[in-house]
């Protein structure tokens, strides 16, 4: 349904992205001498090309844009040659090659002669391998290129043919972007400009030299375009931001290849007053609205989740921090009280609070937990443990053996000693028909692998079987199901992890919704504990299911979190409210005080 009408999609990606992509895009610090700290700032940022405009005046080489702005101290030697020498004196152990692009503003021959003699005053510079010198701006004719010393190369600003010897002296090809397009760096190039630019790139590429455009717009959208178009040096006044952007582009861009088959819910509960019997609470750890949006886009425009009608928004702050962590977030859901970050099932004063599995088991409910985290992880443990720090793994594991849970499935077997109360299931498939009084299943000894590392369909298999197992006991049940690793993608700023774990979550949601359609009286609530990464989606392509994400942080954010609900009384969960209200609303619909 979503995006159904969508046909014309990101021409850029289709035309260029796939065909010629630069292997290793590098940042070029444009007019570097205008930075607060020339040379060092760009070098520290990881720029691999640094531009110095030089002017020969009174037999002295100054770095400046024009004669008016010459300042006595800002010589080529002071700003560039001496610092280069220092890098080897300081043993900085630099790895990446860096080119100094010298843009000659005065007469080509005399200025270049002076540059050469200045460099030759520093034999250490000639002998090092990291920094190279490339002459741009006013330069000698190509026929004269070969007469210059080994350590001098040229920036060719033309597409006329050269002899092989001349070509050998060329380090890169630079072209004026303004000649081909007046693009402002927002959205995309116009339909007229795009072929002009892609054709000229193709032509420049035929020289088999790195290429650069000057006078390009200096924005992320622009950097994205030129990287995908196969340009090697990205011209920028913001070397730090640009390096960060282009070096993370790979981990932030993901072409999706796993899908959730969208199920259309039947909404049989509508206009019927069915009492709530079973409650399924699904938590996508770190699954904010942008995360959900990215899964929607990568899953051909829809999810089972987006078929649901009742939506709410929750505020997730903990009592000691605007941005909650998973411990305080899950404790708010499990106990109905907001608490401090790191606290598990205790209030802000450290007092244990009865949690929902304990309350409901007294009322004759079976209870369960499924997670793609270790069983002693913060989210699952808030549903059975009471400890003052989420890191107290041993104590939390002891709480597990004292818990009221009927069923759990998770990773982290090695963190739990013997729990004779539970029968251990061998396979996910054996869970559904298992007659054990209490049952557990371990997915792994330690951490559960991610979808990208081959976890496969196990979460939805466990949900299907776990629900069947609990249902076979002919008593009402409560189960918490966590997709734990959407959060990991936020922390590691990895778009692929967010998208695949989000889509896997939807496969689990599908099983839950199908169960609810077959078992009237089942209420489903789907939410998250918080958002992770300050994630958003500035670019992408629907036809190839490609998402480029971007992040403001490696930590959690405080943005409002969506709540979707399905089944009888699900309208109780609409509106805008605090995260701990979820607990009270569940007890209210179950008519438990």
């Amino acid at each position, binding site marked *: 349904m979503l995006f159904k009408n969508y046909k014309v999609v990101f021409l850029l990606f289709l035309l260029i992205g796939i065909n010629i992509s630069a292997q290793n895009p590098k940042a070029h610090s444009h007019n570097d001498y205008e930075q607060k700290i020339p040379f060092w700032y760009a070098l520290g940022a990881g720029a691999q090309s640094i531009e110095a405009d030089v002017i020969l005046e009174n037999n002295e080489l100054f770095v400046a844009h024009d004669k008016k702005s010459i300042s006595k101290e800002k010589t080529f030697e002071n700003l560039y040659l001496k610092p280069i020498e220092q890098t080897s004196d300081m043993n900085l152990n630099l790895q990446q090659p860096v080119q100094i692009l010298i843009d000659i503003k005065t007469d080509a021959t005399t200025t270049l002669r002076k540059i050469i003699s200045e460099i030759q005053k520093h034999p250490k510079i000639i002998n090092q391998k990291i920094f190279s010198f490339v002459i741009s701006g006013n330069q000698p004719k190509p026929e004269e290129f070969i007469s210059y010393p080994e350590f001098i190369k040229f920036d060719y600003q033309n597409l006329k043919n050269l002899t092989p010897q001349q070509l050998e002296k060329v380090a890169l090809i630079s072209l004026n972007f303004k000649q081909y397009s007046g693009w402002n760096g927002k959205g995309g190039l116009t339909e007229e400009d795009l072929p002009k630019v892609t054709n000229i790139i193709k032509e420049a590429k035929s020289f088999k030299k790195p290429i650069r455009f000057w006078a390009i717009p200096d*924005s992320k959208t622009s950097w994205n375009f030129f990287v995908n178009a196969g340009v090697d040096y990205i011209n920028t006044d913001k070397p730090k931001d640009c390096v960060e952007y282009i070096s993370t582009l790979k981990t932030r861009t993901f072409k999706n290849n796993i899908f959730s088959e969208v199920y259309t819910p039947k909404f049989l509960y509508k206009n019927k007053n069915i009492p709530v019997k079973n409650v399924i609470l699904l938590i996508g750890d770190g699954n*904010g*609205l942008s995360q959900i949006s990215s899964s929607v*886009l990568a899953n051909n425009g829809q999810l089972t989740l987006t078929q649901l009608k009742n939506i709410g928004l929750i505020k997730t702050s903990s009592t000691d*921090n605007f941005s909650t962590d998973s411990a305080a977030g899950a404790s708010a859901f499990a106990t109905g009280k907001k608490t401090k970050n790191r606290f598990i099932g205790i209030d802000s004063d450290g007092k244990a609070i009865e949690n929902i599995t304990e309350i409901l088991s007294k009322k004759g409910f079976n209870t369960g937990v499924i997670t793609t985290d270790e069983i002693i992880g913060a989210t699952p443990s808030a549903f059975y443990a009471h400890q003052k720090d989420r890191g107290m793994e041993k104590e939390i594991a002891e709480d597990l053996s004292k818990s009221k849970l009927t069923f759990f499935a998770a990773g982290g077997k090695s963190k739990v000693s013997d729990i004779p109360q539970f029968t251990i299931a061998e396979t996910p498939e054996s869970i559904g028909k298992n007659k054990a009084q209490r049952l557990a299943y371990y997915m792994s000894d330690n951490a559960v692998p991610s979808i990208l590392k081959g976890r496969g369909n196990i979460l939805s298999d466990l949900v299907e079987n776990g629900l069947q197992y609990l249902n076979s006991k002919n008593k009402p049940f409560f189960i918490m199901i966590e997709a734990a690793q959407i959060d990991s993608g936020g922390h590691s700023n990895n778009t692929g992890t967010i998208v695949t774990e989000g889509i896997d979550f939807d496969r689990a949601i599908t099983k839950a919704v199908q169960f609810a359609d077959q078992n009237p009286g089942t209420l489903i609530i789907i939410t998250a504990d918080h958002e992770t990464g300050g994630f958003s989606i*500035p670019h992408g392509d629907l036809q190839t299911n490609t998402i480029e994400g971007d992040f403001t942080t490696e930590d959690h954010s405080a943005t409002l979190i969506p709540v979707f609900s399905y089944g009888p009384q699900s309208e109780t969960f609409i509106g805008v409210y605090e995260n701990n209200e979820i607990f009270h609303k569940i007890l209210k619909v179950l008519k438990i005080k």
Partner: protein
Amino acid sequence: MKFIYTITKSYKVILLSLLLSTALFKAQTQKPLNIIFMIGDGMGVSQVTSAFYFGNSEPNFQKFKIVGLSETSSTSDWVTDSAAGATALSTGEKTYKRAIGVNKDSIALPTILEQLQKKNYQTGLISLTSITHATPASYYAHVKDRDLHEDIALDLVKANVNFLAGGGLKFFNKRKDGKNLLNDFAKLNYNIDTLKLSKPVNNKNNFYLLAQDEMPNKVQGRGDFLPEATQTALDYLSKNKKPFFLMVEGSFIDWGGHAKDGEMMVKEVLDFDKTIGVVMEFIKENPNTLLVVTADHETGGASIGKFIEKDPATGKEKNTKDKVQINFIDNQHTAALVPVFAMGKGEELFSGVYPNNTIYHKLINALKKSGIKIK
């Protein structure tokens, strides 16, 4: 009809007559619905969130029961702009970026404002930008590019909108074609004020053009223009017995994102929230009203996170617990789903997740339910 099938057959006749009589009764008591449509330009869920952390009191956003999510892509790019975004909301069709009130083949589409004028509705538009800017323009103009401000102004002369407030004076009286459109408006029975938000004249259309270009933003000291203009419009439009459609745009939430200016963004969101409060008060007194609040897209990839500052003593970065900060990824629009909030008659139609253009169709449905015959 479906309902009747589910009932035992013997009761069919009684029920049918019952239904008929309630339908008749309804027709007599039904009143055409007032619609107040509020667009927070660039207002994604993080922008809404800022109202919860930076306001002095509980935000009005918290009072909504109905929340939906809108998918905002355009036909030319899945990250949309305000022109394609507002046109989808005003006409019910997704279109290309930069399009104002035209479909993807540049053919003019009727807008909800124009359709309702034919049903004897009063109409109003309030914006903080030029009244010819993409969002308000998409309700009355039909041009193929959003930058054609002077053409858009010509369309406004013909539009007969009863209440207009915003900026953009220069597109009316300092035009390349030398025309002074203010004279045309005066001839058409408009009361024009270019100085202040004065008391509207009751038997005239009222047009407040209070800036050459856009109005100042909150940081520059706009004051309470938006809530006051909204209150003025509601007073003026409700004096009449006729129903009305009013669009109110919180324009600078977007501009805050474009400028990556957290302070501006937050102040603009709070101003918008205050304006929502004005409308909610109106709904209490006038229950035959539907309020829908949404956005055309998200701007800036904003998030609200921990406040990290350098400890002056140690130089180490630390997390200051009682402060939050707004972070942006960039100064441009993103493709995240945006929230939809609804209150009043017909609010239930706005639950769920849907493409932005269906919001128009939901409004039409709500109008139909109130007895308006409209396609």
